[in-house]
């Protein structure tokens, strides 16, 4: 019988007991998290708390040592190339450093993966790319080269590129941290519109006001563990643990 708290029995992303070591250093010390479809989750915490590592485990860029992770009911199987390929079509990622392909035009950046992986026809992918670029406000930049764009524009292209694969979940790894302050807003606006449309988002972010505004739940991580989870008002308004209190006061200085 479903409870009022979790109307859907299993989330689109289910993480249980996740542990990850780098050599002798245990970076994730047993993570449990259930993400509902359409939910927007912001992961906050100090650097070194394991936030990015957790995100990168979800699309297999990092291999975890213990625990289970499943996306849309499918468990993550690192050794299975086909399974990983399917997984990554359902989970997209935006990186702090944008990572656009410098030798391809903006349009080709967006078109590459659908052409190769989903084996779409050229006219379909071109139309889709144009539509997505318009969606992020860069319709006129279809033929531009990445190095001709500002950081904020490059990041928006990166978002369009990830959306071209029609993912169910989008992972955002500190996507505005490398941007000049005046360029942050244009990227956040796109992310906000994605959230409004019902995209499942997991964001590691330092933009606290944005996180507060847009997310359904906040996850506070500290030293490889999730210390507190809950709606923004709860975490910001009534922090329970000493670590979160300290974190909040440090960012308010």
């Amino acid at each position: 019988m479903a409870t009022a708290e979790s109307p859907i029995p299993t989330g689109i992303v289910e993480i249980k007991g996740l542990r990850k070591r780098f050599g002798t250093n245990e970076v994730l010390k047993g993570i449990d998290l259930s993400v509902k479809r359409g939910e927007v989750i912001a992961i906050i915490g100090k650097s070194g708390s394991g936030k990015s590592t957790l995100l990168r485990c979800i699309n297999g860029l990092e291999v975890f040592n213990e625990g289970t992770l499943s996306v849309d009911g499918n468990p993550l199987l690192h050794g299975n190339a086909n399974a990983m390929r399917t997984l990554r079509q359902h989970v997209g990622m935006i990186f702090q450093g944008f990572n656009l392909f410098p030798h391809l035009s903006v349009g080709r950046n967006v078109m590459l993966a659908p052409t190769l992986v989903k084996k779409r026809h050229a006219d379909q992918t071109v139309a889709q790319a144009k539509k997505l670029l318009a969606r992020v406000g860069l319709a006129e930049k279809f033929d531009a080269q990445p190095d001709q764009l500002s950081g904020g524009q490059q990041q928006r292209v990166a978002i369009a590129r990830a959306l071209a694969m029609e993912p169910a979940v989008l992972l955002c790894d500190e996507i505005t941290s490398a941007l000049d302050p005046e360029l942050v807003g244009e990227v956040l606006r796109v992310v906000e519109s994605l959230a409004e449309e019902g995209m499942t988002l997991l964001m590691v972010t330092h933009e606290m006001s944005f996180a507060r505004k847009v997310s359904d739940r906040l996850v506070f991580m500290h030293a490889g563990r999730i210390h507190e989870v809950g709606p923004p008002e709860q975490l910001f308004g009534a922090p329970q643990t000493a670590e979160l209190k300290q974190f909040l006061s440090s960012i308010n200085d």
Partner: protein
Amino acid sequence: MVDFSIWDIFRNLLLAARWTVLLSLIAFVGGGLVGLALLIARIAKLRFADQLVGGYVQLFQGTPLLMQLFLAYFGLSLFGINVSPWVAAALALTLYTSAFLTEIWRGCVAAVHKGQWEASAALALNLREQLRYVIGPQALRVAVPPTVGFLVQVIKGTALASVIGFIELTKAGTMITNATFRPFTVYACLALMYFALCYPISAWSKSLESKLHGHR
């Protein structure tokens, strides 16, 4: 005694230069193909590929090319194969070139930013697609200047093939010296011929290099 003019010397050297060029091309193309295969084996993380290719490279970079030529020549004949200097020289130089090129290219692939691997992986591309559409084009751009530069090394390497009897520029030079008794002139001409072959390629490699970095 017949009097040989400088033109006679040059003419004979030019004829021999054909073989230098041919051997160089065989070694460069053959070595390139082998080197590429070794590189892909390493990138695809095939079993023991890293250690084996690493050892292979160390072997060829840590031993004299002359010894490699001798071993090819005397080694193959042990197995009953009728070895001509051509076969031994082509084999030794091909393997030598493959070791150096695979190492040069490995560096070029390593120079591609890690984020490119991550972004293409996150977009569900498999290794073949990553190499062909994302990493390869970027590595190729960086690889062209040093690869062209290595062609010069190959051409210079063919000179050693003369020691195992392969008739190319240097061997011809030695033979012409014996015929003309004008060693100073002959060896000077010989040096100039190699210079004429190598310098344009070196200069081209340098201009490619500066174009690559000027672009940034």
